[in-house]
């Protein structure tokens, strides 16, 4: 049985990676804690829901359109709202993203109603046998998506000129600007990118579980745990952190009972912060130490 929890938690952890990656990117590059990350995820799920019910296409296929839309939304939010606030410090950004959270939550309720929705596809109702245990197919898809996203983002950051610009802007915006990098533009693209990545996470949430206007905050908390463990702002740390939280949750639930799952996860979050605020696994995007 314990082995089963390990396997299941590992695959579930893949899903956690996809929801936390956007948060870590925004923190790593712009030093912004995006309290509206949960709403970015759920908003993507709603968009996919609309598109899938209009076109009857597979939700994952809908991502081809939803991700670009989320990119544009993210880009605009950064350029119009967040960029001007950056010089005023981190709390200002907390408040602004919190305002976004309130507005988005209300809009979801007004547009889509308060019922729980979920995205349907054949693979959400099937399982895959791995080492003799059945794991939901959608978790396997999520893990593959997580690996692709992390590796893809890493390649982008390392080899493409855009990635180099992002890293330069993350390291020292002033210096980056002085060598001709358009920092506000780079920031906008980064937030857009984070939102597009989160579109994948949000759609996977919609497929795996359900979502309503207020479900975002619980995913925000989970994302926090993942990125704190992995090291806030670190790509590879998020990958490891996500997988580890998935395993920890499942093992903890089976050892001490599912009712203590959240308690253990939050206690773990606090302990990691106290013991090692920089996380266990990685360094911030672009910060070469």
């Amino acid at each position, binding site marked *: 049985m314990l082995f089963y929890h390990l396997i299941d938690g590992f695959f579930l952890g893949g899903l956690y990676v996809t929801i936390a990656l956007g948060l870590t990117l925004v923190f790593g590059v712009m030093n912004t804690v995006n309290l509206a990350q949960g709403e970015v995820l759920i908003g993507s799920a709603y968009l996919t829901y609309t598109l899938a019910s209009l076109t009857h296409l597979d939700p994952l296929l809908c991502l081809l359109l939803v991700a670009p839309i989320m990119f544009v939304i993210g880009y605009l939010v950064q350029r119009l709202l967040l960029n001007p606030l950056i010089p005023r410090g981190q709390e200002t950004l907390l408040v602004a993203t919190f305002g976004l959270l309130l507005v988005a939550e209300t809009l979801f309720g007004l547009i889509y109603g308060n019922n729980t929705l979920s995205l349907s596809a054949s693979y959400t109702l099937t399982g895959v046998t791995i080492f003799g245990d059945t794991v*939901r197919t959608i978790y396997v898809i999520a893990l593959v998506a997580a690996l692709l996203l992390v590796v893809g983002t890493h390649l982008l950051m390392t080899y493409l000129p855009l990635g180099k610009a992002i890293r330069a802007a993350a390291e020292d915006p002033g210096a980056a600007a002085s060598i001709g990098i358009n920092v506000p533009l780079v920031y906008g693209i980064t937030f857009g990118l984070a939102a597009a990545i989160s579109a994948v996470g949000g759609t996977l949430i919609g497929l795996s579980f359900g979502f309503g206007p207020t479900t975002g905050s619980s995913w925000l908390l989970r994302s926090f745990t993942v990125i704190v463990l992995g090291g806030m702002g670190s790509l590879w740390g998020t990958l490891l952190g996500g997988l580890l939280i998935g395993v920890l949750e499942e093992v903890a639930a089976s050892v001490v009972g599912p009712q203590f799952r959240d308690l253990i996860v939050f206690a773990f979050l606090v302990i990691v912060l106290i013991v090692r605020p920089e996380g266990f696994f990685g360094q911030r995007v672009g910060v070469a130490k």
Partner: protein
Amino acid sequence: MSTVSKAARSLFLMAMLALSMVACGGTGGSGNQTIVIGATLPLTGALAAVGVLLKAGYQAAVDDINAAGGLEVNGQKYHVNLIILDNTSDPNTASNQATTLYLQDNAVALLGPFTPPLVIPVSQVAERVKRPLISTTAPIEAWLSARPSGWQYSWDVFFDEKQQTSMSFQVANMVKTNKRVALFTDNEEDGVTMGKLWTEEAPQFGYTIAYRAIFPVGTTNFSSQIAAAKAANAEVLIAQMTPPDAMALWKQMKALGYHPIVAESEKGSSTTTWMQALGNVGEGALIANFWSRSFTYPGSQELAARAEKAGIKATIEQAGYIMGYSITEVLFDAIKRADSTDPDAINRAIGQTNKTYPVGPIRFGSNHADPIRAIMLQWQNGDTVQVYPPVSGVSLEAPAKGLA
């Protein structure tokens, strides 16, 4: 410190106080020939799906009495003014709104929200201001235990939960199973109370609780619990959990190949959202209720038809509407019987209720609760049908179709 700005500050404070006075200034709801009744309901948030049904039921009863010229008290016809506020499923807000309705709008009585987390704070307000409240909430046990000294002004109509839990096993007895039960409940007070009752009742019917899972509301991944239930070879599944959690559980049982023969989804499958979100997977789920189409209490069929017209199509949702309508009528009857708008007189009259309403006979015990009889419904072809007590033309589908 600058003195000028201090003066400015003081002036400002005064303006602030004036502003709050304006905000506080009660207009007072009761006009000459109007009687005010209030309700704080979850119209948005997690519990909204059922909140809107009660709202429609309350409103229909009030519309009817006003159409008939109003409520007659002491030889005078009163127009009934129903004020409904949305508490967003938040207990703190529910408590504040109940205070507003009683004290600012001068409501003589309140109709309740539902579920213990919302009803108990509102009941506490009713006791504090000494004005009646009639609510409908599961389980009665949890509501009663909130005030060991007894409720004075709060009244509750809901299932007899002991009968309800026995019924789960009586229904399971209608088909052949190995009598091993997997019990899933969240750690909310209704989950805790009901979980305890099922555990107590099971042996009397020859059932064993082979696996028991307790988890917090908002749990998303149930893989481990499902694997354990499967390993325990439980052919009967009983779950009491919120709709989002229950839907997640059902999807995952399907994906992981757990096929219980009997599957009951209390709370989770209480609205059509169940079928909308789950599609065919939701088919075959059982849920207890207090009303079905087979009921012929006076007015109940007509009300069902009205609900249908108002867009409330599923039987289980019409039940909520009819319950809302019925407890509003209980209140009206009490006001008429009291022949007064005095809250204390109305409160005493509520205690004397003894009549058959569209939802069934209602009569309160000395503990202010009226346990009504539960029946079992099953989701079949997108609607709920009564499977227990058996009615002609309907049979229990087993194994649960959606999970098979």
